[in-house]
């Protein structure tokens, strides 16, 4: 899994940015990050947007990937805070996770 790190302050982001939101530096380096993380929090969505209606109920998870990076993802397995999860695939613009 790839992320971007600000060359000046180390801020990490999933996408490259025009300006670092922490220090306004403009140069980012590509970094490879470990594909496992811990569930920082989650919700189970019952009332979904049209595109997701057929998948409901499903989980939207916030995964702590590194000390500086959390990623919002999609899961269809039950989870709790602190559970270890792994990045499974990037599908239709979403990071999909599964339990380890």
């Amino acid at each position, binding site marked *: 899994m790839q992320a971007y790190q600000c060359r000046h302050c180390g801020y990490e982001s999933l996408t490259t940015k025009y300006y670092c939101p922490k220090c306004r530096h403009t140069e980012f380096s590509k970094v490879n990050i470990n594909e496992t993380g811990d569930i920082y929090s989650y*919700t189970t*969505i019952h009332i979904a947007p049209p595109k997701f209606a057929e998948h409901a109920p499903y989980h*939207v998870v916030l995964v702590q990937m590194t000390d500086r990076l959390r*990623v919002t993802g999609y899961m269809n397995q039950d989870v709790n805070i602190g559970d270890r999860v792994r990045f499974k695939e990037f599908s*239709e613009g979403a990071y999909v996770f599964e339990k380890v």
Partner: protein
Amino acid sequence: MSIYVHGIGMTKFGKLEDKTMKDLLLEASIEALKDAGNPEVDAVFVGNFMGGSVYNQEILGAIVANDLGLGYVPTAKIEGACASGGIAFRQAILGILSGEYDTVLVAGVEKMKHVSTIEVTEAINAAMDNDSNEKHAGLTFPGFFGVLANRYFHETGATKKHLAQVALKNRENAINNPLAQFTKPATIEEIMEARMITEPLGLFDCSPTTDGAAAVVVSKNKSDIEIKSSAQASGPTQMQNAENLLSIPAVGESGRLAYEKAGLGPEDIDVVEIHDCFSMTEIISSEELGFFNRGEGYLAVEQGRTKPDGDKPINTSGGLLSKGHPIGATGVSQIYQITHQLRGTAVNQVEGAKIGLAQNLGGTGSYSTVHILERV
């Protein structure tokens, strides 16, 4: 320079099939102008979010100026998602502070009940960053506050019952408000057992879709309600970019600025309207605004401190949860309620209320405005 509230108006909130958006906008504006003694108006600002996307109606400012015979005055529609009304109110204040205007009419309006939930959800999602992976993961606005709530429960002793206590309090307040959308009593059991929207948030934890409008006349001429300060801040537009998930920095920063400009602190505020788009949001923002310590807002709710007879009454109008949430009108309707409180004419009147605060939120923390008003 000091700026004052001269007149207020508000329509019934709810499903108003017989009224067009223009009807609502004009009805609230006429009431506010009459209340102000029909002064000459130098400009009009209208807060509105989805008039274009679900009602195919723009040029709201010009419509108000024309239909009310205000002359060739400058007007504009202000969009800031759910903070559109608060930002419109602030633009009026800034316009007067600049010296360009003496008296300004601010209105807020939304018409949402004529379209399906699916269409409304799509339109509301315009307040998310399209280029982000979050929308594609199926995240929704209630979803964001569901994720926040689960973490809040994890880090504090709060439970779903505390969220229900917020919803119950606001419902009990709305019962006394004839303009509110929901005036039917509810029980804590009914609230806790209601169908889930996005766990742990159930139906009563989420604000509804609503038709309605509100309006305020502000002026540099003196009245007995002074606007002590106006502040606004922006914050992260994505959940994964929140440094502290249990904080909404735009709320904290707009509050800090508003207190600083007014020379006041949270301890000076007698009555509060907080943007409770979700029950969880009221608790977090009550902490952000300094009324309670971080992680302890839920205890204040449990102890009844935020009820009309508590030491920090929050959402005496019924809040977004039960008064209703016609998006562009919400921020203006908060000023309506605070003004009534300071005049001593409010529903759920807080005895002797002298200083009031209104906080209006847009997106998941993208925008926040805070206004502090004082009876003088």
